[in-house]
């Protein structure tokens, strides 16, 4: 309202001028429309997107973590398997080694016994052979000797061999007794 000095006095501050109310309403309407139609949807969209982005990032991180955990589990399982395999192999090798050693020892024993037995057999055969040869030689020598001493009468074969045998038996008995 225009300043009307002195005469009328100022207008009461509590009495509104209705066109000003209209201006006020228009102002509020403009601000409301701007917020309602354009600005708040825009910012709400941005805020939602931001929240989604943050949540998406977190989900991704969680997925990666889960994968890492799974991989770790797998590795652990594999490591356990490997350890078990290794210990099993070691045990098998030990067992095999022990069997092998035992077998070889047995084989060695057997071979030794065979060799010994063979040696014994050979020795006894040779002794027998030697004894046989000796008997013949001794017989011949004795006959020769007796023939020279006694003469032709001892040429008779039967007697001769009986005499020799008796002689030899005596010899053996003597040897037995002397042993």
């Amino acid at each position, binding site marked *: 309202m225009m300043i009307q000095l002195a005469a009328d006095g100022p207008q009461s501050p509590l009495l509104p001028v209705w066109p000003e109310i209209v*201006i006020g309403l228009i102002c509020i309407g*403009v601000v409301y429309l701007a917020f309602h139609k354009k600005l708040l949807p825009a910012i709400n969209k941005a805020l939602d997107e931001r929240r989604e982005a943050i949540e998406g990032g977190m989900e991704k991180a969680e997925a990666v973590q889960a994968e890492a955990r799974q991989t770790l589990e797998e590795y652990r399982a594999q490591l356990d398997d490997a350890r078990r395999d290794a210990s099993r192999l070691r045990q098998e090798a030990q067992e095999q080694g022990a069997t092998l050693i035992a077998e070889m020892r047995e084989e060695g024993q057997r071979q030794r016994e065979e060799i010994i037995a063979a040696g014994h057999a050979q020795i006894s055969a040779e002794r027998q052979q030697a004894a046989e040869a000796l008997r013949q030689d001794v017989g011949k020598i004795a006959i020769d000797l007796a023939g020279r001493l006694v003469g032709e009468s001892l040429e008779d074969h039967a007697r001769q061999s009986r005499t020799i045998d008796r002689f030899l038996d005596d010899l053996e008995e003597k040897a037995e007794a002397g042993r």
Partner: protein
Amino acid sequence: MNSDQTLAFETDCHLFQDCGYPAPSLWSFQFEPIFSIGGFEFNKPALLAILGSLLVVGFFWAAFGKAKVVPGKLQMVAEVLYDFVRTGIGRAVIGKQAESFVPLLVTLFFTVWMFNLWAVVPVAQLPASSIIAYPIALALVVWVTYMTVTFKTNGFVGGIRNLCVPGGLPKPIYVIVTPIELLSNVFLRPFTLAVRLFANMFAGHVLILVFLIGAWYMLGTVVGTFFAFGSLFMTLVITVFELFIQALQAYVFTILTATYISGALEEPH
């Protein structure tokens, strides 16, 4: 037009000059029209109101026009303000149904705040809300919303019940309470909403004027100048205080609006 008329007090009067302190008067709220259309005179408060609403829209358009997921500085500041109204007032008072009223609450909060803020903007230096028409316009919007929500939610009878009959009282008391509630909810609430804002900003403006005119009035003599600076300092203190009051009144206006809407949304008892 002389300076007395522009500033609405006797600018020639100083201390010890046999003229009294020229206290601020209602003339401080009367303005020469910038132009006239028919009987209506377009004056400074009207200009400030329009500029204020454009500034609010302009600020948020700059901040939210191309809202980004990763905000710039301006958007971040505006987001804090927006979130304050949306969460701090809307969600806190209305609850789950707040979202559809958030645009209204945001509009009210920032329009009222901007209207108030003009009090401390150099050159403008007049809160648009100290002219009763603008608080009335704001309260009118709130009243229409309040009534619409009340009757839309509860139907006609339920709406009347919501406005007049508070639940949980002994029967005889309703004889007294019902008319009081009706008067309070339908007439006093919008009235007080408008007058509270108006009176606060009106008083704040007068308070600043008292000290500022005082500073000018006491200027001249040595002693007077000493006091004048004291008065000027008080003007600054009051201005800072007013900054606080401006935001507080915007907050009160918006939170009361939210409370009314929340009451209107209540289920019938």
